[in-house]
């Protein structure tokens, strides 16, 4: 970053600024972070938009994500193929959504994707069980897990289909103001 070599053209940086919540400097910092993950794979020169993707295992090893119980799901949700291979653009996208400036609606959409483990567009009981197990180190008994998940669905399910649709989820989030500050990863 410190050297004089151009990483992005001005147009690219403008495009990044217009499409994400980052400034020039942050984009460059993100690039250096991305570069750090795999110095031999990621080129320093991005003016030609090289087609370079990093696998999930490398991204998840970042200190920002390493301890997160949902790290795999986060990366998968932002990857094009759903398998967790992130190009630099996906990488920027991910941190843009997780940044402080991103509005609640945008965060809600991706949070829903993250929690939707089986990618069926609903947070069903199975998803909630997985979430709960990740959040509690799998130390609750199966009955307790069942009970908590049932209660959660019962509480948040507005339309009575015994699973949470995106509308249910969004409704819950608008009533939980902390979400905006907690669904946030500082880079």
């Amino acid at each position, binding site marked *: 970053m410190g050297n004089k070599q151009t990483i992005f053209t001005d147009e690219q940086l403008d495009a990044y600024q217009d499409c994400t919540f980052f400034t*020039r400097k942050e984009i460059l910092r993100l690039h250096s972070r991305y570069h750090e993950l795999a110095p031999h794979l990621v080129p320093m020169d991005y003016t030609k938009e090289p087609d370079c993707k990093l696998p999930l295992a490398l991204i998840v090893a970042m200190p920002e994500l390493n301890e997160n119980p949902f790290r795999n799901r986060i990366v998968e949700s932002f990857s094009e193929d*759903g398998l967790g291979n992130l190009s630099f653009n996906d990488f920027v996208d991910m941190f843009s959504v997780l940044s402080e400036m991103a509005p609640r609606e945008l965060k809600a959409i991706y949070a829903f994707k993250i929690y939707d483990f089986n990618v069926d567009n609903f947070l069903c009981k199975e998803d909630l069980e997985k979430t709960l197990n990740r959040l*509690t180190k799998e130390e609750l008994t199966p009955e307790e897990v069942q009970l908590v*998940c049932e209660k959660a669905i019962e509480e*948040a399910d507005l*339309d009575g289909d015994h699973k949470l649709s995106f509308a249910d989820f969004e409704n819950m989030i608008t009533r939980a103001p902390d979400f905006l500050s*907690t669904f946030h990863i500082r880079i």
Partner: protein
Amino acid sequence: MTHYSNGSFYNPAYHDSETLELDRRSARMPHHSNPYAQEEPPWQAGRTTAFSTVMGQRGHADHGSRMDPWEGRQEDSRRGQGSLPMGPLSTHPQSPPWQQTPHRSSFQIDSTAYHDASTLSRFPTTFSANMTMGLRGMTMRRMSMFANGDPSHLSITEVAIQNELEHEEQNLVKDLIACSTKDRIHGIRKLPMSYEEKKHIRSQVLAFKSSKKSRHLSCFADCSENVSLSFRRCGSSMALARQTLALWQGTMKEIGGRFGTSVLSYFLFLKSLLMLNIFSFLVNFAFITIPMFAYNHLPQIPANVTFRGLELLTGAGYFNYTVMYYGAYSPETIMGLLDYNMQLAYFFTIAAYMGLCGASIIYSMASSFKMNYVLSDPMAGGSWQLLCSWDFSVTNEKAVRQRKNNLRIQLKETMSEKIQRKGLTPAEKMKHFGIHLGAWFISTSLAFGCGSAIYFLSQYEQQQTADKDDWSLQHEAETLLVPFVVSLVNLVVPLFYSLFNKFELYSNQRRQIYALIVRNVILKMSILGILCYFWMNEVANKFSCWESMVGQALYRLVIVDFFFMMLGSFFGEFLSNVIGTRLIPRLGVPEFDVARNVLDLIYAQTLAWIGIYFSPLLPVIQIFKFLVLFYLKKVSLMQNCQPPLRVGRAAQMKTIFIALLFFPSFVGSLSLVAYTSWSLTPSKHCGPFQGLNNTFSVVELWITDLEGISASTWVVWIYHKVVRSEIFYFLVTIIILFITFIFWQVTQGRKLLIILLRQQIVNEGKDKTFLLEKLQTLQKSQPTQQSRSRIPKQQTKRRSGGSSTGVRSNSNAMVQTFLAGEQGSRGNYSRDVPVPSDISTSFQRIPIASDRQSSSDAPILAMQGRQRAEVHNYSTSSTLANPLVQVMQARQEHDRPSDGMDDGSSSMSGIMMQVMEARKRADEGDGMQARPPATESSVPTTSSALIQAMLARQQAQNEYDDGY
């Protein structure tokens, strides 16, 4: 998916049907497209055409790229994000090389008709609403589409969905174009798409913009564009500068990573207060102190007063003669290049600072309130704890483990609460009520007791103090008594208050925290109120330069408070950590008490605000204090504390803290300063306002000066008609009350609306379940229909097989090939006719058939083979017509029930279903119409059967359209 798309390239029938789809649309569109095209306002028309040229170019590019289907596929999959399952399909025909010509024209018609139709739905006034709706719609559509199972369902509607998506994209781009630059950027940023797509949309918007610009190259537009561009550049560089200035980013990240958002909010609060003080220092220094220095109007320090070191604590003595306090400023107008009236400068600087502070606090309070309070309502736990409580910013391994543990305990607690929640007996209720009442009584009386004690102490101290210049060291040290007592009270009494928690049983934790906060606020405000009363009433009458005395008192309070804050973190955190880890492990490692610490900060800031008038450079001390405090608290936190056990509602607490900063703190100090400047007589012998009745009369004098100057009559007019007139304030109050009332009404209405909408969601859910049940019952009746429809088919197969077993000629192969071709194309759409085995067998047989004719051998030329086989069949064996017709009939029979079935299921709401159905019907129509020419025609050898079939299909299409 891949299977499907691969098949589709080599399956001519599929291409035909898709072509047909497009043809149909292009044929239909002009009928009802755009009757208003002539009435369009010219600007809009221009825009539309320009837009469609842009789009047209893009369309061409797309078309070009899809000449090679694999190339097209790759590009598509690169461009579309992974969640969209549709790879190679496009709205534009993907024609095999031998069908290129007719398709080109259809594509052209299609694209123009498309754009015409899409312009119809545009209303210039509702752009933003449209856009948000569009965005939402798109989001939902995307959400509902990605990686959904059931490929058969998808493949039917795929083209329709793709169309829909493209349509939405056009609309989106158009809406974005209509927005202002700022809104546009914001809109693009908010799109829930991958970066590539956002960039794509942005480039479309920009391309349109530039094309428009080149068309209307007027000077004004150019200028405005430039100005907006430079504004944008300026804004982004401002953001950059702000980030460069952003203090302690790494520290904040570390704290957030280890202790979570709620503890971090304390540090953020501290940081914002620090910024406020830096701003205040800069303003005061620039407009009050620098002019004093610049013209060397420094106060004279008496010879017998020297710097002794104790001044740093007491602020008295030597400091009394520096620019630190009010008394050192002179009232003269400084003559230079410009006259600089110190009195006015002093007054307006402080007024402006207070005004700006108030505005910024109100703004942040309102936005925080809107964000965190308006829509939130208490939810007991469960789902919230599960889905919204995880703090993504926590990155420390230990903290994560601890947090998981805490969450587990909390969940267990909520579960047990839910299980054993029982009502309290009246006796218990009375007991609780009594305890609350007692606690409140004790705390309030304690607060007032402390207040009065401090009043008497200050009175006693003041009697000891003489109004003279040289103080003995001991005397100077004695002045520290009052601040010491005040700070001690502030430290000890809150600890006492928190003991109440042991006896008081609150139903939830939040109420307990609120009670604690309210008690602490009452204590602090009563102490400060008493002190202010004392300063205004007693100090103001006794001392010759009373403003400086008050300034000194505030200085001492600030300094001693600083030491006590440090002591507090030592005792509160370090000692309890030692006790908790070494002596009594039962107590455990302490938590960081956010509420208490934030209240301390608010108290400190109140002191600084009150002092701004009496000691303009007090913010320097405050800046120093907050800086040290930040690092101290950080170290103390890292060393002594553990992450909070409970996941509190940090965001709401933040709002409450800002509100507290505004209401008792800021409003109190503002009213105090206002009272001082309006009602109290400034000291006669020192300070900028000496010799005036009150501070505000500076403005009156200035106005009388201005009355002589004709150029500034408007200032005089404003002063007389606005500032000094009661009617103006009366009117403003009335108007504000009126507006408040209207907004209150609107709020009530919205609340009602929210309730209704929630109800509606519930009702929709009920509808959905009802419809699902209906659908299920329908599906239960379906299998019988399906089995019925299968029987004749099997029979026909058997029959045709039986009649031609002896012959086993190529004719049979032909029939099968034909059927397989039809069924193959159909198999992709409908779930009830899967015949992969037929395809394979027929393709195996085609070579045999063509071998017999010995004209061609390659299976790729199956078409020719088929055709020749046909000819051969009809010329040689006429007996075959019989089974063929039978097959045909069977097929028709089979089609009919399936048709009926579709009708039955079409009761399901949704356009998609209708599209599906229409598609099916079209295919069936095709099938029925396509076969007769094949069987009846004498088949001239020159024309290929395929083209004939195509023509027939078009004919069928026309009929179909007419039927509609």
